[in-house]
């Protein structure tokens, strides 16, 4: 009897402690700071918001900036990003700096509710106090307040309870802002801060584990930024992989890509087009150079990457089979822009010979862009002159498979062939009118 009583007491204590832990408000360095601070210049916070690309998720196409409402799919149901304008009732106008900090860096709302990690707080955790203060200032003092109710998630009870996320955070989120690595110089450390912290590059480029956590949050793990599949696109490796990563890019190439959206290796497309339009092009040259320095310090993995690519002129294709049919389709549909030699047109039109997205093991990106084309790249306010058109209504699944098999197997490219089945699957998933379209995934 005594044992049972002791067990009950211990169990109650454990549940109580767990409940306390899972709903507690964490400490913030801003706990003692009032919210009535004098506004900073708009540029300071606006820049921090560009670095963190808040607008990407907290807006919908055609909606007002920062009012939220973007649907994101999770295995449990759909969640919606929230209104982060300073409206006091539907937005974050009532937040103190400490409450804002807890939401951004620790994923905890003012009422103790845990945020879904669709909010990349495991990355934002590394942001500096200064950047968080600047963000708060921007959202509270410079963004117009818009009254727009948040949409409830479609996740049903009991899976919609938020407290278990506290244990997810315990397992997968590092605490504490970025600490400079003394072995590296200031530029590298600034780059590491931007990539791991506000830039949250890993949200798309780092593979995710079973609990949807990014498997690595910094360069100590070779899987960090090693490439990942999401939303029907493959975000390629940002490590020094010769074929499928940034191995053949110089630091200058990386910085140019993020500043102009294009360089001689490729043009932004898919989800990166959005990251470019909303975020990277607004970064200073110094910050882009720092990102390039950091990324170029991440070693590639030759075992994963395969034999190094080098250009080879296309051999005469076999008289029959997918390569021959692909070559014909290429000449009629693709070669006009990408060139019969596959080398594109300077930085204006992407080469297909040696392009990392073409050589990647995952073929989602090449199928997706062939079906659906590329979005509008807007650099310095000017829309791009050359855009990949959607070919979904012009080419069949088999034709797309053949032409991609040809592209992935020509000019020195040695990537696996593409099947009509794979094209059919992605055609269905990227058709908004189908019964099963891709909903934007957590990022």
């Amino acid at each position, binding site marked *: 009897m005594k044992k049972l009583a002791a067990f009950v007491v211990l169990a109650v204590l454990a549940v109580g402690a767990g409940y306390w832990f899972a709903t507690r408000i964490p400490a913030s360095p801003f706990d003692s700071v009032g919210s009535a601070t004098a506004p900073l210049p708009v540029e300071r916070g606006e820049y921090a918001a560009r670095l963190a690309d808040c607008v990407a998720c907290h807006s919908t196409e055609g909606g007002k900036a920062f009012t939220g409402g973007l649907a994101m799919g999770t295995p449990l149901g759909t969640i919606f990003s929230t209104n982060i304008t300073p409206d006091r009732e539907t937005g974050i106008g009532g937040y103190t700096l400490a409450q804002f900090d807890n939401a951004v860096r620790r994923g905890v709302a003012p009422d103790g509710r845990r945020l879904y990690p669709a909010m990349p707080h495991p990355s934002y955790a590394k942001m500096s106090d200064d950047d968080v203060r600047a963000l708060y200032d921007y959202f509270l003092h410079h963004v117009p307040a818009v009254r727009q109710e948040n949409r409830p998630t479609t996740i049903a009870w009991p899976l919609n309870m938020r407290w278990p996320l506290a244990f997810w955070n315990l397992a997968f989120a590092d605490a504490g802002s970025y600490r400079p690595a003394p072995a590296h110089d200031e530029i590298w450390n600034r780059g590491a801060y931007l990539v791991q912290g506000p830039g949250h590059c890993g949200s798309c480029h780092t593979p995710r584990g079973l609990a949807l956590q990014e498997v690595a949050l910094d360069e100590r793990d070779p899987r960090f930024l090693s490439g990942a599949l999401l939303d029907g696109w493959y975000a390629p490796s940002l490590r020094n992989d010769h074929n499928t990563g940034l191995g053949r890019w110089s630091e200058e190439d990386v910085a140019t890509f993020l500043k102009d959206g294009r360089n001689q290796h490729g043009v932004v497309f898919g989800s990166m087009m959005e990251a470019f339009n909303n975020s990277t092009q607004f970064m200073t040259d110094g910050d882009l150079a720092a990102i390039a320095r950091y990324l170029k310090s991440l070693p590639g993995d030759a075992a994963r990457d395969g034999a190094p690519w080098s250009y080879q002129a296309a051999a005469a294709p076999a008289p029959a089979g997918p390569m021959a049919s692909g070559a*014909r389709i290429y*000449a*009629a*549909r693709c070669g*006009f*822009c990408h060139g*019969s030699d596959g080398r594109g*047109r*300077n930085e*204006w*039109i992407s080469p297909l010979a040696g392009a990392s997205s073409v050589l990647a093991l995952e073929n989602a990106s090449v199928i997706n862009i062939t079906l659906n084309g590329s979005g509008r790249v807007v650099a310095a306010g000017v829309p791009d*002159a*050359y*855009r990949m*058109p959607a070919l979904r209504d*012009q080419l069949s699944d088999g034709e797309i498979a053949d032409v991609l098999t040809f592209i992935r197997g020509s000019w020195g490219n040695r990537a696996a062939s593409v099947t009509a089945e794979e094209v059919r699957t992605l055609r269905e998933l990227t058709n908004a009118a189908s019964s099963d379209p891709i909903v934007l995934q957590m990022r």
Partner: protein
Amino acid sequence: MELTINGQTHQVDIEPDTPLLWVLRDELGMTGTKYGCGLAQCGACTVLVHGQATRSCVTPVETVAGAKIMTIEAIETDPVGQKVVEAWVAQQVPQCGYCQSGQVMAATALLKQSARPTDEEIAGAMVNLCRCGTYNAIAAAVREAAQA
């Protein structure tokens, strides 16, 4: 930037990413090359660059500086081009005519690469669009030019 078009050199001072089509039409006044879709889909803007059919609407002018460009204005100075034009007249191919300069350029490029194309090759290469539906006449003219 220096462009070699129909054997003549032209100096143009223009943004490097301007499409070749606009340089031809707006800067140099060579309006035989037509604007159709602007997306490399219809072929109305086809010109030859080093003898290859090229959609000038999606060709950044910077990338053809120094290349040998031929437009519809000079197609009859080319022996293959001349045969194509004669066959086009003999078959009375054009109806409204808007796509036809592009069709002639595409046919010339095809016959330069393959002097005796099969019907399959013709169908595969002549993908330019024609709203009047002159496709049968186009194919017949290409076959006639190949025989000539």
